[in-house]
């Protein structure tokens, strides 16, 4: 029996080879999720979910944006769904795998010459880390996408589904909190 002529052949997408996509983008997706949610186990789980959902919905990928933008959009949606749950709110402060400020401070680059300069840099790093943790989820995501993932503002708008002006506003407020923490000697944000 001949196949129907009007039946469209399956469209090939980059996500058909999910292993290659995973190996290329896993680290960036995990990094964003880890820094946003600050729990290694949850970040690993959400990373897996991101690629699973990307593969399941690969037929809807039309190439309007880059693979990374599409993956990051899925990750942001998963992150939003996860942080909305009551279970997450309950365990947020008691998670055994939660990241402490002192952990991240160990990774401050030691390019400064003097010990005093390194100490100042470490304090500034801790201040930013603490400030970012106190931002709202949306502000934190926008901040991380810009200053860690180095996405353009238009790409951040595409990932988050926010208008460009709103993205800018979130960044202004996040940077204002960082500057206020700097001005206050790293003690408190406004």
């Amino acid at each position, binding site marked *: 029996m001949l196949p129907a002529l009007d039946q469209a052949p399956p469209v090939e997408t980059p996500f058909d080879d999910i292993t290659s996509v995973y190996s290329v983008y896993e680290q960036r997706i995990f990094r964003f999720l880890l820094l946003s949610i600050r729990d290694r186990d949850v970040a690993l789980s959400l990373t897996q979910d991101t690629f699973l959902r990307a593969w399941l919905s690969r037929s809807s990928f039309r190439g309007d944006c880059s693979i990374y933008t599409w993956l990051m959009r899925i990750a942001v949606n998963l992150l939003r769904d996860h942080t909305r749950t009551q279970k997450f709110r309950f365990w947020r402060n008691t998670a055994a795998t939660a990241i402490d400020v002192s952990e991240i401070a160990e*990774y401050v680059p030691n390019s400064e010459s003097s010990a005093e300069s390194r100490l100042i840099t470490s304090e*500034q790093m801790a201040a930013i880390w603490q400030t970012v943790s106190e931002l709202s989820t949306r502000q934190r995501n926008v901040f991380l996408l810009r*200053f*860690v993932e180095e996405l353009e*503002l238009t790409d951040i708008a595409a990932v988050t589904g926010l208008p460009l002006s709103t993205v800018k506003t979130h*960044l202004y407020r996040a940077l204002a909190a960082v500057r206020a923490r700097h001005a206050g000697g790293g003690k408190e944000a406004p």
Partner: protein
Amino acid sequence: MTPHLTHEQLCDFILDPPPQCALSTAHLAACPACKAELATLSASLRHFQEASRSFAERELARRPAVIELPRRRSLMAVPAYLAAAALFLGAVFIPLRLHRPGASAPPPSPVAAVPASVQTTESDEAFLNEINQDIAASVPSPMEPLADPTSDAAGTTSNQGNSQ
């Protein structure tokens, strides 16, 4: 002297690198305070980025092995599964065969079984006969007059007197 850059103007230098408006650029070149503020903020953000990336890279390296994507099973895994299945079946069915009812216990001896049933039947029949006799009797046995206990003693005395 022009006033310092606003927060938005300062942030625009970080978010959207030049070209910026000429007025802001000129002020930044002439104002050490705004220049220092911009340099400090940029350096802090750069350190945050570097530290965050290093930290995430280390955390990803520490992930458990089960998180990795499933790979094709090697051929060596098949005999291992078969051996495990054989061990499981052996562990389940061998004890069942060993402990099957009637297999381990010795067969009952017919010689011992038959007398037991015969004795039971005989005792039952004797008991029923006794009941029938009790029912058929005109006077129930508990109401029958007691035997004279002195009859034996009188007989014995008369015998003694005759002998004397």
